[in-house]
């Protein structure tokens, strides 16, 4: 057996970007090798495969690298391994809507969430306010995707939007504990609350999620010592 269909994921256990690629590969049933990268001492392979950003997460398929930047790896996986689980809808308009909202979550919400994690005091308060406002916008927007307001997720119907939302807010409880604030409020954003709960209950997601305590400790560590974590993942 040669290089045929060899898939390697260069990732980091606490990176939400790595995690969602892992999840996508498992959902699609794609066999792969996982390589944990040490952010302080990146492998020469990683630097070779991602010379532009020098970051995890990188997928290498038959020796060719795809760096994760705005969901590119997830789309690649969807197009390369076409099976019953489709991450993106076929219909162009629905596809455009999914892309719009995943871009919103990724670029608007998640980036502001990073600011909340990295800052304190006034800067943090401002960022928290922004995140909460944007979460309410997302709540409104998602009503179209979940018309009965009851997200029913299983491993057969998970899509790109679920994966992106999960990677951005799946661990909201960890953040809420460390930061002492409520991020996904069941009263203000009931749809988002039930959505994230439904995803977190999937057996595969439970399996891939690191233990709560480990994540809490890691988040505390990032806040205290390493302002640069989010530049590395």
């Amino acid at each position, binding site marked *: 057996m040669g290089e045929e269909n060899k898939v390697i994921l260069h990732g980091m256990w606490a990176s939400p970007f790595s995690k969602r690629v892992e999840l996508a590969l498992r959902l699609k049933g794609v066999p792969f090798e996982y390589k944990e990268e040490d952010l302080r001492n990146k492998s020469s392979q990683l630097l070779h495969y991602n010379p*532009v950003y020098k970051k995890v997460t990188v997928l290498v*398929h038959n020796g*060719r690298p*795809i*760096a994760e*930047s*705005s969901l*590119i*790896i997830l*789309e*690649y996986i969807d*197009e*390369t391994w076409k099976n019953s689980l489709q991450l993106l809808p076929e219909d*162009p*308009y629905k*596809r*455009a809507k999914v*892309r*719009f909202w995943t*871009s*919103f979550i990724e670029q608007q919400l998640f980036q502001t969430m990073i600011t909340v994690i990295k800052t304190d005091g006034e800067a943090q308060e401002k960022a928290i306010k922004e995140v909460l406002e944007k979460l309410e*916008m997302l709540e409104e*927007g998602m009503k179209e995707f979940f018309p009965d307001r009851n997200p029913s997720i299983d491993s057969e119907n998970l899509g790109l939007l679920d994966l992106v939302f999960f990677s951005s807010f799946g661990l909201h409880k960890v953040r809420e504990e460390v930061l002492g604030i409520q991020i996904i409020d069941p009263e203000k954003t009931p749809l988002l609350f039930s959505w994230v709960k439904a995803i977190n209950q999937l057996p595969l997601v439970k399996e891939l999620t690191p233990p709560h305590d480990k994540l809490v400790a890691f988040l505390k560590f990032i806040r205290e010592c390493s302002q640069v974590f989010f530049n590395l993942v």
Partner: protein
Amino acid sequence: MEDEVVLLDLWASPFAIRVKIALEEKGIKYECKQEDLFNKSHLLLEMNPIHKKIPVLIHNGKPISESLIIVQYIDQVWNHKSPLLPSDPYQRSQALFWADYIDKKIYGIGRRIWMGKEDQEEAKEELIQTFKTIERELGDKLYFGGESIGYVDVALVPFTSWFYTYETCANCGIEAACPKLIAWAKRCKENESVSKALTDPLEIYGYLLQLKKRLELQ
């Protein structure tokens, strides 16, 4: 049934130009509605309530926003001619990567140049490095898309009208640093879809000077 295609536009926007080039490449007839960023129309606010920004494409009453998402949409719907994205998943992922890189870098860095504040020198360095990285990706190809214009060409070429502004504001030396990119820009203009849509560099310069004044007053 005739397709109804409307573009909510701002003549100077490089993002709107991307959409215009894509529409021209596909031979799609469309209506262009000019917006005023300081006085947005009800239609814009209704069609893009989240970001309230142009460009917005309205296809048979349904709105699509974000320039690259629009270009991908156009490419998928009107797939009868001029494919912009490669069909091979790997090539496609590379095209998406580079367009995203352009999106992340050029406008933001460029803005720091024409706003002319303390970070202008630093922005100038970053801009040149960014162009050099992009030029390396072009290599010896005629276009990023290969033999003909593709997704990455569409993403980048509108910014070539802004080179004059970057040079005039900060003496960037783009031509000296990236001659292949300049040659590519000239080659792109030989395509009607591009030459029709591109703005005049001097007009852009004038526009940005005005915009800068207005932003400083706010």
